[in-house]
Each structure stands twice: as structure tokens, then as C-alpha cells.
């Protein structure tokens, strides 16, 4: 187990290094200088600024500096807002995004599983069709459109929920729903097809031949096995929630990291773009690792040491 995790951590570091490197060079070849959008600066001030940010050094020195700083968990200052560092932005914005994201993940998983299981148990009945139409709709309506609809009808028109900002629990309901809608739909479809697949297996017939009731078979034999593919979806789910937060936070005026990230893109605030991208990558890679470990615990066939499926 420890060996397996160690190996995975190593891979994770390599991927991370690739991402940091790629980000660094992307930003260097990006059009324009970080200061171009501001008013014409006198050359000596620009030189000063460049020196201050280390932009006068050769690229490899800058690259080395950057790597070193990232290792020390220091993403440097924001180019646009001189008084703020990227670290400040992250520690300010991330907790907000985290709460929202967690709420959305819970919603997506809970409702997705319920819908999917019902659909599979009532295969080809009206419950199945209804659940699947909800799911296709959830997949087809992008989260930012879902968000604007929810905001317009439930908040602006009916006044059931607050329109924007992030203060009470009620403020979180609509954004979390909007964020959860697409992943919920995916989980519902995945659960359904996985349940149907499992239910057609011989061991379900064995369980039935033992005289177990449909309920016991569903709970003890079918659902557990059907959950395995759903667990692997947790990685992409995190990614989806994370990128979804870029737009949702903007729509609902939530001061999360996603909103900051989008602002930094509009402002071409390169250090922030770089820093947040690296930070997001760390989160995603870590969540994929967690999912792998969780999978190994749930599925006895997987020996974490070898990482191979036993026959």
C-alpha cells in the first residue's frame, strides 16, 4: 500500500512539473507584456518594474526562480494588484470555493445515485424514462445557463433565494444546484448503466437462486458493485465542479477563487493565471490519487501493491 502510494505520488509530481513548465512557457510566449494594457510607461520605469519582477533575467533563471518559489509554496505577487500576492488570493478565495464545491459534490452524488438506481430498477418503465430525460437535460444545459435560469426565476422573479453574494446558507443553494446539475446527470447515467450491467451478471442469478429477495439482492449484491465505476468518476467530477466554479461564481457574485481566476484572465494577470493553474492542478491530481486509493479499498480484487486486477 505505502509503496503504491509512493509510486503514485512520484507520478503526480512528474505531471505537476510538466504542468508548471508548460504554464511557464505558455505565459512567456503569450502576446504582450504584462504591463502593456496600462498607460504608456516611461522606459526607465518599465525597466525598473522588469527588474523588480525579475523579468530582466534570462529565461532559464526566471524558470529556476519560479520552480523554486512554487516548491516553497510562493506564487509571487499579482502583476495587476501590486499589493496582493497570489497566495493571498488563494487563501482568500479558495475556502469559499471549497464550501460551494463540497455542497455541489454532495448534491450531485446523492441525487445522481438515487436517480440512477431508480432508473435501473425500473428499467424501461416510466420512472426510467423520466430519470433519463432529466439526466439528458442536465447534461445538455450548461451549468452557467442553468445558473442564470435559476437566478432569474427563483431569485429575481420569485424571490425565494437571494440573488447574489455569499453570506448565508440560502446564498449557497442556487449556485450549488447550478454547479451540481451536470455532474448529477452524469452520475445518474453512469449509475444506471452500471447497475444494469451488474444486474445482468451471473452472480445476481446466483443470489436469486439462493432465495434472496429482490431488495436484498439490490442492496447487498448490485449497488455495491455498481458503485465502483461511479467512484472512478469522482476525479472528473472534481474537475467539472472546479471549472464550473469559474462561471458560477461570476454569475452569483461569489468572491471565490474561480471568480478571481476569470478576472485574472480578463486582466491578463500572468502570475495569477500561472499560480492558480498550478494550484488547481495540484487539487485535481490529489483528488485523482484519493479516488484511486478509495477504489482500491472498495474493490477487493485490486491489490494496491501491484495495481493489477486479479482474475
Amino acid at each position, binding site marked *: 500500500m505505502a509503496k503504491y502510494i509512493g509510486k503514485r505520488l512520484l507520478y503526480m509530481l512528474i505531471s505537476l512539473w510538466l504542468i508548471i513548465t508548460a504554464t511557464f512557457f505558455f505565459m512567456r*510566449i503569450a502576446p504582450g507584456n504584462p504591463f502593456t494594457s496600462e498607460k504608456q510607461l516611461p522606459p526607465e520605469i518599465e525597466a525598473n518594474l522588469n527588474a523588480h519582477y525579475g523579468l530582466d533575467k534570462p529565461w532559464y533563471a526566471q524558470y529556476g526562480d519560479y520552480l523554486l518559489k512554487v516548491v516553497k509554496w510562493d506564487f509571487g505577487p499579482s502583476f495587476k494588484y501590486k499589493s496582493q500576492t497570489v497566495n493571498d488570493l488563494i487563501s482568500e478565495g479558495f475556502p469559499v470555493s471549497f464550501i460551494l464545491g463540497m455542497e455541489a459534490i454532495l448534491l450531485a452524488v446523492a441525487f445522481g445515485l438515487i436517480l440512477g438506481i431508480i432508473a435501473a430498477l425500473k428499467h424501461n418503465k416510466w420512472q426510467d424514462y423520466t430519470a433519463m430525460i432529466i439526466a*439528458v437535460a442536465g447534461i445538455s444545459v450548461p451549468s452557467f445557463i442553468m445558473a*442564470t435560469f435559476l437566478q432569474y426565476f427563483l431569485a429575481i422573479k420569485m424571490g425565494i433565494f437571494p440573488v447574489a453574494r455569499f453570506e448565508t446558507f440560502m446564498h449557497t443553494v442556487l449556485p450549488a444546484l447550478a454547479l451540481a446539475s451536470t455532474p448529477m446527470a452524469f452520475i445518474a447515467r453512469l449509475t444506471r448503466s452500471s447497475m444494469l450491467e451488474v444486474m445482468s451478471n451471473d452472480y445476481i442469478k446466483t443470489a436469486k437462486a439462493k432465495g434472496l429477495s429482490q431488495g436484498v439482492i439490490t442492496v447487498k449484491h448490485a449497488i455495491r458493485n455498481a458503485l465502483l465505476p461511479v467512484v472512478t468518476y469522482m476525479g472528473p467530477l472534481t474537475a467539472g465542479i472546479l471549472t464550473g466554479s469559474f462561471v458560477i461564481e461570476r454569475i452569483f457574485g461569489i468572491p471565490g477563487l474561480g471568480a478571481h481566476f476569470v478576472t485574472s484572465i480578463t486582466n491578463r494577470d500572468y502570475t495569477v493565471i500561472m499560480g492558480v493553474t498550478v494550484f488547481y492542478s495540484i487539487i485535481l491530481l490529489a483528488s485523482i490519487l484519493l479516488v484511486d486509493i478509495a477504489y482500491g479499498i472498495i474493490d477487493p480484487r485490486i491489490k494496491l501493491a501491484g495495481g493489477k486486477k486479479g482474475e
Partner: protein
Amino acid sequence: MQISKDKFQLVGTKISEAEKISKPSLSFWKDVFIRFRKNKLAMFGLVLLAILIFMAIFGPYMTEYDYATNDLTNKNQAPSSEHWFGTDDLGRDVFARTWEGARISIFIGVAAALIDLFIGVLWGGISGYKGGRTDEMMMRFADVLYGVPYLLLVILLMVVLGQGLGTMILAMTITGWINMARIVRGQVLSLKSQEYVLASKTLGANTSRIMAKHLIPNSMAPILVTMTLTIPNAIFTEAFLSFIGLGLTPPLASWGTMANDGLPAIRYYPWRLFFPAIFISLTIFAFNVVGDGLRDALDPRLRK
């Protein structure tokens, strides 16, 4: 029961007849078509798609207004008999812009799917057919690329390359082809081991002929499904990018940019957001259900 004696003469097997009376075997694609037609949701999606494509082609000519012409005296008009979907903050006709947006969305979707197809078939085909080290290296490369979070990568690329239709399609396809390559490779591998390919190989047919004659037609089904499901993905990505301000530049009207422009005014001029929003959703929905329907119709395991 009386049976005449001459009925009891030996006549022996009639194997050929036995084969004849067995089930009339439908051709594969006809079978697929029949199953697809039975799927009401997929048929609905297909009709919807036909309407959307029709409107994308002819919609802009149905109104006298041009999608890019400003008319500052008629800003933010509500939908009326004059401006069917209202006007935006520069007085441009939302109806004309909506169908212009449909053109762009569908163009982006189809272009992305075609590029994915081209690279994917080439990469996956070569990788699967060559096998060995080549295969190993090509697939490793694809794996590494695939590990990078898709939207983050697309965002970074858009920042680096600058906004525009071309860069957007490029950014989307930079990882989009991987799925296609994997599917094609899998198909090639499984077909490669099958007898009829071996047979034509021993008969001396050359590699490219074998590919063209056997592998490609047999891989049609999964390729087709992947393509129909790539299109809605690309349409979504375009809208998403435009919505965070990385989209097409004015005066081009894409659904994403229209929604983005409409968002600040949602309280007072909701139609500016709702028309593009509804059509993005409808288009993605139509492609999704058609893709799902195709997949179900093509999946031989569901053949009953």
C-alpha cells in the same frame, strides 16, 4: 390418424432449405436504422437538429435586419413583431444574431469533430496497426496529454494564442482527438486479429488496402458515435470560453458571447440572455440524444 404409406419414404437432409428458412437477416445498417427509428427521444432529437440546421442556414435571411448592424435608437427592445427576439444594447437584432450564432456553434462543433476524426484515425490507426514500440510510444504520449485538465488547458491556450475562431478550434482539438485515437486503435487491434484480415494479408493485399477495405468500415459505428458526442462538447466549450471572456471578438455573434453580453442586463432585458441560452441547450440536447440513440442502435449487445 391415417397417413398414406408413400409419405414414409426416405428423402434425407435438406440442409440448404434449413438455411433458407432461417430468419431473414437484415443488413447491419438497415437494422441500425430500424432500431434508431424506434427510439422516440432520438427521433425527436433528429427532427430538432434538422430544424436548427435549417434555421442556421436560412434564419438570417428571414429578417431584414443584419446581425452586425448597430441601431442605437433601438437599444434593448423587447421581442416584438418588428424584432422577433428583441434587440441588444447596441440595437442589433437578436433574431439575426441568434441564427448567426447557430452557424458559428455548429461550424465549431463540426470542425472540431472532423479534426478530431482526422488526427484520431491517423494516430490510432497507425498506432494500432504498427503495434510494438511505436504503439507504446504513441499511446504514452496520448496518455500524458490526456492527463492535463481539459478546460484549464484550453483556457491557457486561448490566453496564449489570442482570441479567434481558429485558435478556439485549435485549442479544443489539441486534446480532443485522443478519445478518437483510442477508439480507432482498439478497433484496429481487435480487427487485426480477426481471420478475414489475416486471410487478405496472406493473399498479398498491402497494408493500406487492408486498412481501407476492412478496418475503416468496421470501425464506422464507434467513430460515428464519438463524433456525434464530440459536437455538443465543442459547442459547450465555445459557449463556456465566450462566457468567461475568451471567446470570439465582435462583431461576430456566437451564442456564448451573446449570453455573456446579456448577463449584466438579466434583470431588465432577460431575452438577451435567454434566446442564446435556450438555443445552446437545445442544440446540445439534440446532438446528445441523437448520439445516444445512435450508440444504442449500433450496440450489438442490445440486439434482440
